[in-house]
């Protein structure tokens, strides 16, 4: 091969490599997009039944039920319009409390129960997850409360 055609091969190889990377990347990206739904949307049947998604809201007071001999926990979250039950097995984050905002990642199981693989609470006492604030705002009942939460200044 002469110099010019070698250079062409090199450029072709690079373009080909980047194209493959793009295809693989976009595929992985597509598969791992997690959408957020509020309890109202889930109740309305907007949430996917086969894919994982995220759901969030305030933990309903008095709804946390713990299994006596395992780490299984059930609790309700609400956007102040609708509420739904979340089941989780494991250890909840330190900042998980009744009445406070959480986000759960998981999927719907047969029988309409949401089983979470991961439960995130805020990192800080004054902070409300932004999606939860937005969901509360959308439900309209607690817009002011939600706004107050998000605008309080917090530490990292």
């Amino acid at each position, binding site marked *: 091969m002469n110099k010019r055609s070698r250079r062409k091969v090199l450029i072709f190889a690079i373009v080909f490599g980047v194209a493959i*990377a793009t295809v693989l*990347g976009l595929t992985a*990206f597509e598969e791992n997009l997690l*959408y957020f739904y509020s309890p109202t949307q889930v109740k309305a049947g907007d949430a996917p039944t086969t894919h994982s998604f*995220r759901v969030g809201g305030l933990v309903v007071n008095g709804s946390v039920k713990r299994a006596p001999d395992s780490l299984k926990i059930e609790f309700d979250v609400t956007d102040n319009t609708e509420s739904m039950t979340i089941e989780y097995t494991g*250890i909840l984050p330190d900042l998980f409390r009744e009445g406070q905002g959480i986000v759960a990642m998981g999927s719907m199981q047969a029988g309409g129960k949401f089983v979470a693989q991961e439960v995130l609470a805020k990192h800080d006492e004054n902070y409300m997850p932004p999606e939860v604030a937005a969901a509360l705002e959308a439900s309209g009942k607690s817009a002011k409360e939600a706004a107050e939460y998000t605008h309080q*200044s917090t*530490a990292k």
Partner: protein
Amino acid sequence: MIPELGHFALIIAFAVAIVQSIVPLIGAARNQPALIAMARPAAMTQFLFVGLAYAALTHAFIVHDFSVLYVSNHSNLVQPLLYRISGVWGSHEGSLLLWALMLALWTIAVAVYSKNLPEILMARVLAVMGMVSTGFLAFMLFTSNPFERIFPVPLDGSELNPLLQDPGLAIHPPMLYMGYVGFSVAFAFAVAALLGGKLDATWARWSRPWTTIAWSFLTFGIALGSWWAYNELGWGGWWFWDPVENASFMPWLVGTALIHSLASTEKRGVFKSWTVLLAILAFSLSLLGTFIVRSGVLVSVHAFATDPERGVFILGFLIFAVGGSLALYAWRSAAVVSFGRFQWFSRETALLLNNIIFLTAATAVLVGTMYPLVVDAFGVGKISVGRPYFDTMFAYIAIPLLLLMGVGPAIRWKGDNWPRIAKTTSIFFVFSLVVGLLIPFIVEDKLNLATGLGLAGALWVALTTLKDLLSRMMRGLKLPLSYIGMIMAHFGVAVFVAGVTVVMTYHSEKDLRMEPGTSYNISGYEFLFQGTRTVQGPNYIAQEGVIEIWSEGEKTGELLPQKRTYTGKSEPMTDASIDITFTRDLYAALGEELENGAWSMRVYYKPLIRWIWLGCILMTIGGVLAVSDRRYRQSVKQTATKKVTATASL
């Protein structure tokens, strides 16, 4: 009184920064030595006043001056001295002040250590750094004044977020900022070179050590953050692909590309305009990182409070800095011509491939981090990108990267022949592949391709790196520190990859419910729970679990995880306990107290996890060694005249 002095010092620093960013540039444009000579004293003065402001805020923390809002929000009377000093950068306003201090520090470091720089170039570099500083000081003064007073003065302050009360995290932000802000030097050199229209190999030589040392700080800072998350958050993970983590990882990726590209530009005078672009990108991503972390726009476990005014300011600054420098680049870079010629199979090509791989990685992280923001901004919905996306992308990216690392350093500049490289490396290739694939086969009795390839990659890089070192030693070649640094950093990558591969495949994690006196076996280690006791700390009360570790009938250790309640905070904090050896960590964290003295707890077995941070430390040391190389301290003028391969001037 002292906080007012601090505030005043900040205002003076702001004024000086404006002078520093304008006067030397006018001087450089009109060739007026008196104006050019203003750059250094302006930089010194600015450093002095930013330093004074910083000292004033630290003083307020140390003497518990709760009349300062920031102090009363982030410290209280029982807080230990160390965390009052680190409390300065515990939140938004103070960390900006730290950022400004770091920038002033880098600026005078350039002014002091680059004595051989032509005066005009020096004036331009300091002016560009002055502009960055002006932006940050204005941001602080107009939206986030750390010296704001509060009335009535509270008797005691509130607690610094207990998560931040950890020695690792106390030094994590300064290290990270040293790295972030350090890229401003390479950026300033690049913009100054574009302004002057003179981009030659000496430009690369001047900015190279600065870039490398900034990169070392950033590497160490990111590793510290990862180590802190592992220790403190009680989740046992070392990297979460959290937007805040990604914010520091993107400049690191582009910075790594920049280091390699600078090597080509310095040694061979090639890829000049590309290198300039990378320097601009690396610093732009540092600014973007600040924007992401400080504006609170992201859905993140780290999530910060939102403040639209601040967000708009940072965005404006970002557009000015990034847009301005890119426009300058578009205008001026056409005049930059690279004369160096090289064949397709050469070190230059290898380094170019390195750049492509690192930029692909940075793009992957950028897309995963910013896409949810864009979707949210258009009001289409709330989404987030799952961790598997990033894991998958980096698994793909690691393959060509590790392959390249094995051969790249052995390929000669200008051109080499493939048979020569193949002859010396193919044996290592086969050996690594066989051994790498064999290890999981022996351990778990089945073929595990992903793990096998990861281990093979680590082995391949480690062996070829050592082989390169040995063959140079045997041939009696000189081993300059920059070379030793490169070897050490590459070896660090091998250690890192081995650690990541093993911990991802062979870790065990278990959430348990344990009653006192019961035990649980995890990967051959017996965790025996003996119950809990109450422990009083300096500013917290803790429930401390006592967990004995038994291995092969012998007690080998004890874990004492705590659940702490800090004074002034209602919610408890998890403090994990870790039994560390070189080959594995045993990790326990308390969950919640259940009935009958039983606790929910999390126990982990993490093989080779220490290698992840060991690898990062090796990379950091590698960077520091490379910068210590003598040739960067030689009279630059002397070598410059010899080394100039091409100049392009307007």
